[in-house]
């Protein structure tokens, strides 16, 4: 079965420091990977996606993600964290069946950025 895993329930980082939120995937064939962010009482906001091409994907709000095929990882990164980045982050993989477009999500990682 195709899936993603987020090994950390919570990541703590000081404002101004670089941040990494980890995601590993298990898929057959080429992976199509996504990152979403969820603020309290809000829906999921799309950050970035990897379809093909460059392994470093740039997204919204200064976030980027690095696709690593050998390590089956798609970690989310930001060079300098802001307090406003504190939220719940979800990694997702596109699962293909006859319907073609289902997303399977990881369990989420809570990012806490402290001033």
């Amino acid at each position, binding site marked *: 079965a195709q899936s993603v895993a987020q090994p950390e329930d919570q990541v703590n980082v000081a404002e101004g420091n670089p941040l990494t939120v980890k995601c590993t995937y298990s898929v057959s064939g080429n992976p*199509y990977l*996504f990152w*979403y962010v969820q603020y309290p*009482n*809000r*829906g*999921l*906001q*799309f950050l970035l*996606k990897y*379809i093909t091409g460059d392994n470093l994907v740039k997204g919204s709000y200064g976030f980027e993600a690095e696709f690593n095929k050998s390590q089956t990882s798609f970690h989310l990164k930001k060079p300098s964290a802001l307090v406003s980045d504190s939220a719940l982050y*979800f990694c*997702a993989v*596109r699962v*293909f*069946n*006859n*319907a*073609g*477009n*289902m*997303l399977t*999500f*990881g*369990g*989420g990682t809570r990012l806490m950025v402290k001033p």
Partner: protein
Amino acid sequence: EAGVAQSPRYKIIEKRQSVAFWCNPISGHATLYWYQQILGQGPKLLIQFQNNGVVDDSQLPKDRFSAERLKGVDSTLKIQPAKLEDSAVYLCASSLDRARTDTQYFGPGTRLTVL
């Protein structure tokens, strides 16, 4: 561009009662999804529509859940009768189509509490 709209934002009901949620996708988006997000977990797909047809409802508990998208635009998800374990956030999402590169955009969700 207007995003995905959902209503109501919050709903509290007692078990065995009925409830309905409404979703209006981004204009021009052919594909519409309903996800269930239980507290502390990632969203899980319930049903997927392509225009006004169902393309994937394999994870929808059909004995109590139903959904429709009669005119291929807005959609309604219904639960009848509700159980305690249905307490969750119900997220609606839409995408331009079912292509592999299409991004799903999410609404703010409806938080359901079943007492």
